């Protein structure tokens, strides 16, 4: 097999990304950007989920919560206007935020980093509180986190509460002298994020960390006995996984234009981030990528031809089919075929 190191792999992915970008720019159909953005977003989400769910074997049902935290941190920073916002301790002593004028409006790459930080910290906290639980108990705890957070956001007026929030995005964006349509700009950012997520996942897989994650998935007791600090590794996984989900969510309000809790915490994020790695295969970085492209395109196609309401049905049916036909996902299926083929 050809050995490809991380630097070369990153380069290959960046080149592929650039080709996709150039092609999309040349075709220049806004819908193409709009649809592909969703697929790229799911690549990031699925890869993020897989760091905890695939590598460590901890099923996270609360992906939507981390995604929404990223999205809502962007909304909060969009709503926060240092020109007019004042924080009053009493009637007379107020704190103004004029000193922050220079930073606003915050560019989206910075929002992505902030979203990642917020969700990463939340991931660390969740991990610390729930990692003593295993199996379905852990999954239920993460689901509960999503419910609690949604309730908080629904009751937080500043970010629109249950009414939701409008984000008015600029028409165009100038980037390195090229005039870009704003959706094209968002697409480019998500493409870059997908590349970073895939490179991170692949790097982890091949590192000491990846070996450690796999021991946690296989047998935690034996891992500890071999000297693996399981709690620390699991916290690294929840933090990284949460951070990438938050980063995927941060540009979402700008993409969608109107964000409400029901859509940010939507069931489809939780279900898709689990289904995509499962369908693709959970043990390698390729699995979530294949799953997200396959399922994401199928959903986009269904949205246009039938209705967006069919999306979850598609996911459900494919998941059932794959559990029966290929329990280790497409990657697992191919690996198995190769093994039997080589060993007649």
């Amino acid at each position, binding site marked *: 097999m050809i050995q490809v190191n991380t630097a070369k792999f990153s380069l290959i992915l960046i080149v592929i990304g650039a080709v996709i970008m150039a092609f999309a720019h040349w075709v220049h159909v806004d819908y193409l950007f709009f649809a592909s953005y969703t697929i790229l977003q799911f690549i990031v989400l699925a890869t993020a989920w897989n760091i905890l769910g695939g590598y460590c074997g901890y099923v996270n049902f609360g992906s939507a919560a981390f995604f929404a935290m990223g999205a809502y941190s962007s909304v909060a920073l969009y709503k926060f206007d240092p020109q007019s916002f004042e924080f009053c301790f009493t009637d007379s002593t107020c704190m103004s935020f004029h000193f922050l004028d220079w930073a606003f409006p915050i560019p989206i790459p910075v929002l992505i980093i902030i979203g990642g930080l917020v969700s990463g910290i939340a991931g660390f906290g969740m991990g610390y509180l729930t990692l003593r639980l295993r199996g379905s108990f852990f999954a239920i705890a993460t689901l509960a986190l999503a419910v609690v957070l949604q309730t908080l956001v629904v009751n937080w007026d500043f970010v629109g509460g249950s009414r939701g929030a409008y984000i008015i995005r600029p028409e165009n964006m100038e980037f390195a002298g090229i005039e870009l349509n704003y959706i094209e700009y968002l697409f480019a950012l998500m493409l870059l994020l997908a590349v970073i997520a895939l490179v991170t996942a692949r790097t982890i897989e091949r590192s*000491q960390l990846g*070996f*450690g994650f*796999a*021991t946690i*998935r*296989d*047998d935690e*007791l*034996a*891992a*500890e*006995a*071999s*000297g*693996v*600090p*399981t*709690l620390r590794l699991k916290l690294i996984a929840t933090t990284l996984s949460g951070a990438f989900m938050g980063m995927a969510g941060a540009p979402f309000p700008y993409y969608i234009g109107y964000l409400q809790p029901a859509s940010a915490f939507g069931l489809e994020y939780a279900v898709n981030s689990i289904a995509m790695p499962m369908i693709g295969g959970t*043990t390698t970085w390729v699995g979530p990528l294949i799953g997200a492209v396959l399922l994401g395109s199928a959903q986009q196609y269904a949205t246009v031809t039938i209705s967006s309401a069919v999306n979850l049905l598609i996911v459900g049916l494919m998941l059932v089919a794959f559990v029966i036909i290929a329990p280790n996902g497409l990657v697992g299926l191919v690996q198995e075929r190769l093994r039997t083929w080589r060993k007649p």
Partner: protein
Amino acid sequence: MSALLHVNNISKRFGGFVALDDIDLEVQPGERLGLIGPNGSGKSTLVNCICGTLQNETGSVYFDGHVIDGLPAHQRTHRGVARSFQLPRPFHSMSLADNLRIPLLYTVRAREGMLHAHSDLEGRCRELLDMVGLGAKAKQMPRDLTQVEMRKLELARAMAAEPKLLIADESMAGLSHSEIEDILALLVRLNERGITIILIEHIMSAVMSFSQRLAVLVSGKKIADGKPQDVVRDPEVVRAYLGQ
């Protein structure tokens, strides 16, 4: 000479059930200790308390002159306590060589810093597999192994952590006579390299030929501790095993 392991009056209860009651046990460096007792007498609980899988409620465990109470299991492994599990628990998604790579990466490297180069790791895995006679199967998966090979893998993985103390928890149960001889010979070889070994076993012939000293647990209490020949004649031990 001070003891390598000193279990100082530890107790452990599960709800109302007293699993370990004031156990006191010393193991000298380089010693081969046999630990026996009927089912449910607390042998595995004692091992778990020494290795950090469970935490003892009273008393302390001293290892190499330091208290190791409260330390998580992986830190005790770093300090030099290694164990094999009663039922083999290999990392089933990894090849045999990768199974051994884990303690090398996480324990030996953590202990010695980054001295071990990558190529060195491969060689070391191979060396350990050769030691237990699994060298030819380095690339195979644990599911391809027989029961006795699985036990050997378990011991090799424990050895990969380069321990000072090895606790072999029923590593011969269910094996045939010749397989038992195989494992015993392996354990003796390890002991000759200076590793202290606690052997927990039901098979008396194996325990008797291996142990220099024998300790007996019954219902969470240590009822005997001494030369193997004397211990098996102890009336209390006989009563525990055969009834009155």
